[in-house]
């Protein structure tokens, strides 16, 4: 009987090694996006936007058109692309510093304008590429190189929950958070990513999928322990689930009388 390959590298990923650290969940997230592009047959229509962060070199790993954005500006670049090329599938792939710090205005406003793009948000509670500094998503008491005594909520405030934040906007969108700490979590994260891209194929709405991820190197623990820490410490604060869906009931003030110009 012939051997049938049931799992292998997707076409939307190049045959190459990445520079990511051993056990870094970037690799898993990249693969989930690439598998989705393959399964929905989007590779030839896709345009990705890479951030500044560990995944600044994402354009070397994906096998589709790609641009490199300035720090935090990927949603703005994606807006420009999607408005000019509405038939292309435009997605950004961003980390916590890029999206939740310097890029906060850009992500809120692209979501609020309802740009028909897909955003993959990698939340690993730290700044990876620059060597492990505090991020807007760093947990209270978590030690990083710029909060060596642990994040002090009296000085730095609490972590920002981007998925919840964006879900309060009135414009319809698909906002969800997934987990990568175990294989079943990875499978359900993939479902969320697939739904997000499906909405873009339908030209329906803005999507953001936040993925609770790890940074073994800067957290200072082994890859498996990092997955475990993301489960025990991050998930209680960054809950998984769908926070907003374009099929949600519209709030009252969006009734036709208020809708204005159609």
């Amino acid at each position, binding site marked *: *009987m*012939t*051997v*049938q*390959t*049931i*799992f*292998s*590298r*997707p076409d939307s*990923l190049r045959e190459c*090694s*990445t520079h*990511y*650290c*051993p*056990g*870094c*969940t*970037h*690799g*898993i997230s990249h*693969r989930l996006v690439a598998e989705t592009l393959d399964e929905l047959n989007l590779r030839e229509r896709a345009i990705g936007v890479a951030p500044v962060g560990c995944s600044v070199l994402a354009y070397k790993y994906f096998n589709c058109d790609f641009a490199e954005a300035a720090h935090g500006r990927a949603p703005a670049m994606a807006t420009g692309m999607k408005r000019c090329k509405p038939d292309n599938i435009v997605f950004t792939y961003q980390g916590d510093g890029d999206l939740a710090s310097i890029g906060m205005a850009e992500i809120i406003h692209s979501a609020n304008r309802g740009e028909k793009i897909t955003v993959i948000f990698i939340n690993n509670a730290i700044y990876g590429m620059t060597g492990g500094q505090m991020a807007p998503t760093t947990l209270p008491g978590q030690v990083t190189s710029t909060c060596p005594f642990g994040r002090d909520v009296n000085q730095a405030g609490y972590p920002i929950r981007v998925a919840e934040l964006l879900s309060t906007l009135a414009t319809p969108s698909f906002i969800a958070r997934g987990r990568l700490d*175990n*294989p*079943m979590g*990875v*499978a359900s994260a*993939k479902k969320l990513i697939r739904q997000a891209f499906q909405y873009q194929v339908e030209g329906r709405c803005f999507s953001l999928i936040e993925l609770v991820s790890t940074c*073994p190197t800067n957290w200072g623990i*082994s*890859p*498996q322990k990092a*997955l475990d820490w993301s489960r025990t410490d991050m998930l209680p604060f960054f809950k998984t689930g769908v926070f907003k869906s374009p099929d949600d009931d519209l709030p009252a003030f969006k009734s036709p009388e208020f809708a204005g110009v159609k």
Partner: protein
Amino acid sequence: MPMIKVYKDQCKGCELCVHACPQQILGMTDELNAKGYFYAQMVDPGRCIGCAICGVICPDWAIEVGVQGTRYVLFEY
């Protein structure tokens, strides 16, 4: 009879597959690959069920899973 292929020079020795395998039949070699990592290997091929969980958790797309006939699908992927 399911079988996995580890692309050894792609592997970075993170050991996530070793922990994730439900049959616990993966281990690390004591030989270094071209990058200087100990890489993953199948320790007990006879007990592989072809669930591909090792492939799913691998961050380096270093594992390919092949089956001949039956395989276990532990969850939809």
